[in-house]
């Protein structure tokens, strides 16, 4: 296979990956799936970078891909953490449940209604304030559900 053909094929694969990821990101509501789609877009870009790197006989592309992988790993950790938090708040993975960052005058848009099952009254552990001794409520210590 010639270098050009190989480049073309790789770019095609990359573009496909990117496109699938993009479409998935825009059309799906499940946060995990959206995250995976975003990763897929990243991989699409990585593939094309590797392809270009090879085509130009330059290690820059590969280097950048490794860099992207690192970043993606961090990103994954943060994103999954966020998703976990959101899930714990609402008990569900639907992104449509989180539209709070909109203007007051704009109505929430949901194409299919979702049943509201937030568990607001659940007691979550708090971070201990650093530096100063927090006021301790003996009752709370006695009746804490879990640490």
């Amino acid at each position, binding site marked *: 296979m010639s270098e050009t053909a190989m480049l073309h094929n790789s770019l095609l694969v990359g573009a496909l990956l990117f496109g699938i990821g993009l479409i998935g990101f825009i059309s799906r509501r499940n946060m995990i799936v959206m995250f995976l789609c975003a990763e897929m877009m990243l991989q699409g870009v990585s593939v094309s970078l590797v392809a270009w790197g090879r085509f130009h006989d330059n290690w820059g592309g590969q280097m950048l891909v490794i860099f992207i992988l690192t970043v993606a790993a961090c990103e994954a950790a943060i994103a999954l953490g966020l998703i976990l938090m959101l899930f714990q708040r609402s008990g569900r993975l639907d*992104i449509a449940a989180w*539209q709070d960052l909109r*203007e007051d*005058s*704009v109505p929430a*848009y949901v194409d299919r209604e979702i049943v509201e099952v937030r568990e607001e009254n659940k007691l979550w552990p708090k971070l201990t304030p650093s530096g100063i001794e927090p006021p301790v409520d003996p009752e709370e210590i006695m009746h804490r559900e879990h640490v």
Partner: protein
Amino acid sequence: MDTLLILIPALPLAGAILVALFGRQLKELSHLPIAVAIGTSCVLSLFLLNEVNQKATDPARPANAVGYEHTVTLWTWADLPDVYQPPAPLGANQPEGTATPSPAARDYSFDIGVTLRADPLTCIMLSMVTFVSTLVTIYGAGYMHGDRGYWRFFAYIGLFVFSMTMLVSVSNFVLLYVFWEAVGACSYLLVGFWYEKPSAAAAGKKAFLVNRVGDFGFALALFLIWSNYGTLNFHDTTITNTVTQVSETTMGVLGQMRLADPALFVGGGAAMAICLLLTLGACGKSAQFPLHVWLPDAMEGPTPVSALIHAATMVTAGVYMVTRCTPLFVASAGVPAFHLGDYPVDAGDVVAIIGGFTALFAGLIAMTQHDLKRVLAYSTISQLGYMFLGVGTGTMAAIVAGMFHLITHAFFKSLLFLGAGSVMHAMGGIIDMRKFSGLRHLMPVTCLTFLVGCLALSGAPPFSGFFSKDDILGAVHDKAHHAAELGHTMRGNLYSSLYWVGMIAAILTAFYTFRGFFLTFMGPEKIPAEAGHHAHESPRMMTVPLMILSVFAAFIGGVFFFWHGFADFLRRTPSLAFKPVADTFVAHAEPHWDVMLTSSFGALLGIGIAAYLYLGKNTEAKFLAERLGPLYRLSYNKFYIDEIYNALFVLPTWLLAKLSYVLDQNVIDGLVNLVGWIPRFGGRLLRSLQTGMVQFYALAMVLGLLVLIAALVIRPGG
């Protein structure tokens, strides 16, 4: 001489500062520093007068010297070098035949020093001011006794005397203006002395504002003088350049160098404008016709203040200023636009007309007032009108007569005011003549001294007012005669009508003066309830100044009249030694016996009418008042001048002000808010894009990316 000149104003200032700082400790002794300071100033003024007199009349002086002046500069107020070059050459519009050594075109400096001057005019004013002030201060110590603001009163008085002595002794227009306003401020403080009385506070403000209107004219006149002459100093100044050692002399506006040659004065419309604006300023301070409204209201102040400021000293500042600026007024003749029939009008004529009219006008109002102090206030306006008539007439005799009247008036009018104050003191602050009468037994000293004042004011023969008023009328008469001889019919007619106006005003003067005297001191004894235990003759501290003043009021006129030294001394003032004025001087002029006879007759007529109407039961007076209803009301309501001014000036300004405020709040601020609203409106438009949906944002990003890519692809050559 320098020390004297500096000490005369400095002493009252020092006294004022002392009292202001330690007044609360001095308490009832607060009058002492002021009285001592002003008294000393008075003595020093007389020394100065003597010294100036010796030097000015020294036969060894060069014959061609234009008057006598001596200046001393304390410090430089402002000195802006080379700021201006007057555009038009000086000496335009001058009568031909005078060589015009036009000063070299060069940049003039705005050089104003705190400069005091001594010349005959200043010395006379200084002596008069400090003398009357001393007496009034002593009187005030009795009058204000027990007042809460005792020390404050004397601090203000000291400040006033300082300002007034400075006013007459400074030697440039800027400082003249400075102290011109400073005496106005002292007047504001003193009129509003009993600030808890709303009418007093309002009167003080009114006095200040009306004076400000006059000062508006004065300030513009100053700017015009600066723009035309390139200096504001009276005297000639010399500056030596420290580098090149070249001396450069700037002619003062009224300096001896300029006075030596009439062609060096600016003529034409500018001169006319300068003089008319100066006249406006003088009218404000001296309460002449369009701007006289503040003086009667100013009677709200303590009576010693009325005597000192609003009768003897401050209000004569306008006369002083016009006298000082006589050369400017003379130079204003010959503007083609201002003609009176066959003769060009000069600004002096305007002054004379204003003066004559005011003399009559104020006399008419004074006839019907019930408030003794207001009668005296209108009488002051009227007498100031005489002085204006005198100085406006512009011949040496008339100017000297105007100044002569200024002096005599200072004595007899302050005497009258102090007498009225004595009555007021006894009546517990009541000064309405309907509420008391027949006080001659209760207050014999006051009654007698007041009578002397009344005789002097009405111009009864041997008293001082007689001589000074006759001098003015005689000078006006002469001018009319002279103009007629020269064939200036209209001018002759003008002055002869002014003469008759003055004569009628003299009758009115005698009438209202004695009306006041009869209503107060004659008739059945009647004392208002407010008088309480005060209803007795005033203490020695008040009556002694009355007696001293009455001696002067009685005799000073005669002394000056028969001793020609006054005119001879005064004419050595540089401004009056100006050639066109000096040429009209006649040594040992024949007294105007005809004028004297007419005016004595007029005075007696006025007194007679007053006696007929107001001695006895006053029924005729009431009858006359009813029969002449509209005229009476017109006079009683002061020709509705206050109301007219209110409707013409005050109300429109208020409406305009209200309108401006509404405009400000709605239109101007509205426009600003409109501009502020534009971004907000834009935000509102874009607001619906903020949906909070993650996918929407992602889509927007993709679309944006596509647009970018499309732009890159489609871009020609890209």
